């Protein structure tokens, strides 16, 4: 996937959306029916709960940019997208917008199961703002892109879910929007279709269309966006550089994870050997990142031949590396008491981001004494040149032209 083409300068471009001091309060009613409202009349305060989904949000989006809205569940990112789309009205503040907008908050919103694919294409295109003439002109492209031309005259209730989203996405990308709002709907269909979707998004970017997308996939956000807005509990905590935004987001997850581990009760069956503490840190010297993992082990019973194993994972849970000390010619201490083991991973060539370290203690026979998943984490600073899972040191030379 190629890097999104950046438009020359952010400053001389016109804004397409301006969000000014937008706050949104949700009032949660716990009673819906007349009976409930009558019986609780007068005491109704208790049945109403305020919830600020957005607080004094300010955002200026320029044409041609691709903005990712990220945050934990309930951080208000979808609400912000809906406010921009005009689906929800803000409690205070205003949103101004220009150009043609298409909102893809749910694929196939407005598909009617009893109508055929063809009828639904026309209906959905009209919902997204295309007139009959434009739909006629684009109809063949839409069907072609969806790849389900054989079933276009079948009622959509007989479609598989894959066919359904293909057709819906296909309509949505053919409406020629200046501003496209996308909520978690890009990961649809099989792999070739997903690739097609991503190509289409890249095409949109090169055509100077503005995309605002909500995603939980930091991977996707990092790949597509040139600006990331991180929301937390309705407030903006970061606005700008995508890699930095993703790091902040992951730090937030990390804080949650650490809190959760602390609250978990420790398992009792670890009396012979257990892990007291794990620390990991990165130190950078001369452009090399070295990671040091320190494990404090409590030895309560002398176990000869025990070893330590360490693995490194991404925050999304992909295992990058695993090792154990059995192959190394080092005998770990068997005296009772606490021992500190230090493992150095020199010149680690990982892309920027947060990585998790899991530690286990055991015997070569497979017996485990103790194990701590995601016990510590380390950060790798931002790469100078590129981004991705690994870090490379590219060089660029100008070769003399050949005749």
């Amino acid at each position: 996937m190629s890097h999104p083409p950046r438009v020359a300068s952010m400053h001389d471009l016109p804004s397409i959306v301006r969000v000014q001091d937008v706050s949104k309060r949700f009032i949660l009613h716990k009673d819906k029916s007349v009976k409930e409202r009558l019986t609780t009349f007068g005491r109704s305060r208790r049945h109403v709960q305020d919830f600020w989904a957005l607080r004094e949000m300010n955002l200026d989006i320029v044409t041609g940019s691709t903005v990712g809205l990220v945050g934990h569940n309930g951080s208000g990112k979808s609400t912000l997208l809906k406010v921009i789309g005009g689906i929800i009205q803000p409690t205070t503040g205003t949103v101004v917008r220009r150009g043609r907008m298409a909102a893809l908050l749910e694929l196939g919103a407005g598909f009617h199961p009893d109508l055929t694919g063809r009828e639904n294409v026309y209906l959905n295109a009209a919902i997204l703002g295309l007139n009959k003439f434009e739909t006629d002109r684009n109809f063949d492209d839409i069907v072609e892109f969806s790849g389900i031309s054989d079933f276009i005259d079948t009622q959509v209730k007989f479609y598989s879910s894959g066919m359904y989203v293909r057709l819906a996405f296909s309509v949505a990308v053919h409406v020629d929007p200046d501003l496209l709002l996308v909520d978690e709907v890009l990961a649809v269909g099989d792999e070739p279709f997903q690739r097609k979707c991503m190509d289409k998004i890249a095409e949109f970017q090169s055509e100077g269309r503005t995309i605002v997308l909500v995603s939980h996939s930091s991977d996707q956000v990092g790949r597509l966006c040139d600006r990331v807005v991180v929301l937390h509990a309705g407030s903006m905590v970061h606005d700008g550089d995508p890699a930095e935004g993703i790091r902040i987001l992951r730090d937030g997850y990390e804080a949650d994870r650490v809190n959760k581990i602390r609250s978990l009760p420790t398992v009792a069956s670890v009396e012979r050997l257990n892990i007291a503490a794990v620390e990991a840190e990165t130190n950078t010297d001369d452009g090399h990142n070295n990671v040091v993992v320190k494990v404090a082990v409590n030895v309560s019973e002398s176990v000869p031949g025990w070893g330590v194993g360490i693995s490194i994972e991404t925050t999304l849970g992909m295992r990058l590396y695993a090792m154990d000390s059995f192959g190394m010619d080092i005998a770990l201490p068997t005296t009772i008491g606490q021992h500190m083991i230090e493992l150095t991973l020199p010149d680690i060539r990982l892309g920027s981001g947060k990585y998790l370290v899991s530690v286990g203690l055991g015997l070569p026979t497979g017996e485990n004494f103790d194990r701590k998943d995601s016990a510590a984490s380390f950060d790798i600073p931002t790469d100078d040149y590129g981004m991705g899972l690994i870090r490379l040191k590219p060089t660029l030379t100008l070769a003399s032209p050949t005749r």
Partner: protein
Amino acid sequence: MIRASAQERALRIEQEPLIPVGQSTGFITGTWSSIQDVWAHRELLTLLVKREIRARYKDSSLGVVWSLVKPLVQLLVYYFAIGQVLGVARNIPSFAIFVFVGLTVWGLFTEIVSSGTMSIVNNSGLVKKVYLPREIFPLASVGGALFNFSLQLVILVAATVVLGKFPLTTDLAYAPLALANVIVFGTAVAVVLAASTVYLRDIQHLVEVALTVAFWASPIVYSFSFVHRAIAGTFLEQIYLANPVTLSVLGMQKAFWIDGTAQTSQTNWPPDLALRMWISLAISIVLLWLGQRVFSRLQGNFAQEL
């Protein structure tokens, strides 16, 4: 090449004014912008009406015939039970035509109101996910109701031809006025109820009950002469005649039920029917405007309440 198209787009967007998102809540300007908004989506409106109609009869083999079965069965029931058994038909010439005229108008009104009431809730998938002027949903219900009504009207006209009672008189001019009345009034009610139902779901059941009662408040299965005889000149008669649906039913009867004029000397219509209908139409238009204002006030929170 890539840059060129991007720059062109940026330039074009720079020319456009920034428009506030969402509906304007200004009291008078709001209505105008809503009308413009709905007008801009008129193609979608027709598609939504078609969707309603197509989807309703898609899998039934008799299809659209079903929309005629209900009023025809009602006609038979009322014709025998009330007309023949209770003997109402003795005082009402061409009782079948009389009843059918009333039933079609009443059917139009109930369908506008009851499907309009549910229109926002039933389209919650769209309301929550896409921005559209939300008035379009109650209006689509009105469109669907009008489609059914027009089928029934064809049957009605055919019946008058077959029975040799084709209404070729100047009274036919009452028909468009009556229809305008029932459509505007019904839409006003539907728009308010559609918005309120989102917040209070009980309304749909209340509407059903209210419609059942209201059926008897208009001269559909009995003629106005019965009412006139009982409460002539009283305040009650004025209240009875203040009902826009009643006026519409009377207007349609005036237009299509020629035996009501030709074969009886009874007071089947109040003398100033036309004037009353014009006044009622004017009031209904004001109600529709007020209803739209209520609707646009309430619609801001639809997406979160559904």
